[in-house]
């Protein structure tokens, strides 16, 4: 009987130590913020379309935060959720900008080809003009 009481005493002491070290039940203030941030992003078409994996990652971390029995872990995971939501938004921004950049790069490349063609057309008559005994130069404008 004394041994059982000793064990209870040891268990209570360890529990107290655990609580003191931060292994205590949780609160939900940070969790509410994380939920709101996630819900906001999960309704954003641009994020859904362009960063589905990052969004899913944030959702999984949110579930982990909600399940955690430890207050400090929950608060830390809630912070991680908010930052992962920011990452999802940044990834979506990056993707949109990348697509626009490749579209613009294609246009710039076409523009370069047109510019060279015009330059070539402008240069040719000058060469011909140099051989022209009358010294006549075809004064075609360099640009249309």
């Amino acid at each position: 009987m004394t041994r059982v009481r000793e064990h209870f005493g040891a268990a209570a002491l360890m529990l107290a130590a655990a609580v003191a070290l931060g292994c205590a039940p949780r609160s939900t203030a940070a969790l509410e913020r994380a939920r709101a941030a996630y819900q906001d992003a999960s309704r954003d078409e641009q994020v859904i379309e362009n960063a589905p994996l990052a969004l899913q990652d944030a959702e999984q971390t949110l579930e982990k935060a909600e399940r955690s029995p430890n207050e400090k872990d929950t608060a830390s995971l809630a912070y991680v959720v908010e930052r992962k939501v920011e990452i999802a938004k940044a990834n979506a921004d990056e993707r949109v900008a990348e697509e626009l950049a490749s579209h613009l790069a294609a246009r710039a490349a076409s523009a370069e080809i047109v510019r060279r063609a015009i330059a070539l057309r402008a240069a040719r008559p000058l060469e011909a003009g140099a051989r022209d005994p009358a010294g006549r130069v075809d004064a075609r404008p360099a640009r249309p």
Partner: protein
Amino acid sequence: MALTWATLLAGGCARHPPTTQVGMASRAVQQAESLQAESYSPLDLRLAREELRRAERAVENEDYDRARRLAEQATVDAELAAAKARSEKARARVAHLRGRLETEPAFGNEPPGR
């Protein structure tokens, strides 16, 4: 007695240093640095570095739970710094290409003064 210890450990107080998490945080900071997050997202990078330092200090003090949490925060902050750096670079590319096309008379844009 063994059961009590087992319950306590399952409850979350760690015995081992979070080597994996601290390593991940360190690599995430390096990755962000290599993407010039210093210029594109200095606050997030500074936060990540500070958390990594505090995580390492917590490991030295054998406060492993705290070290793990700090390492996880450092990782996500470094990843955010890197993500912002990448998106800012993509935006800069868009701005550069737009500038080039605007001064390009041969393609869709009228040259100035016409």
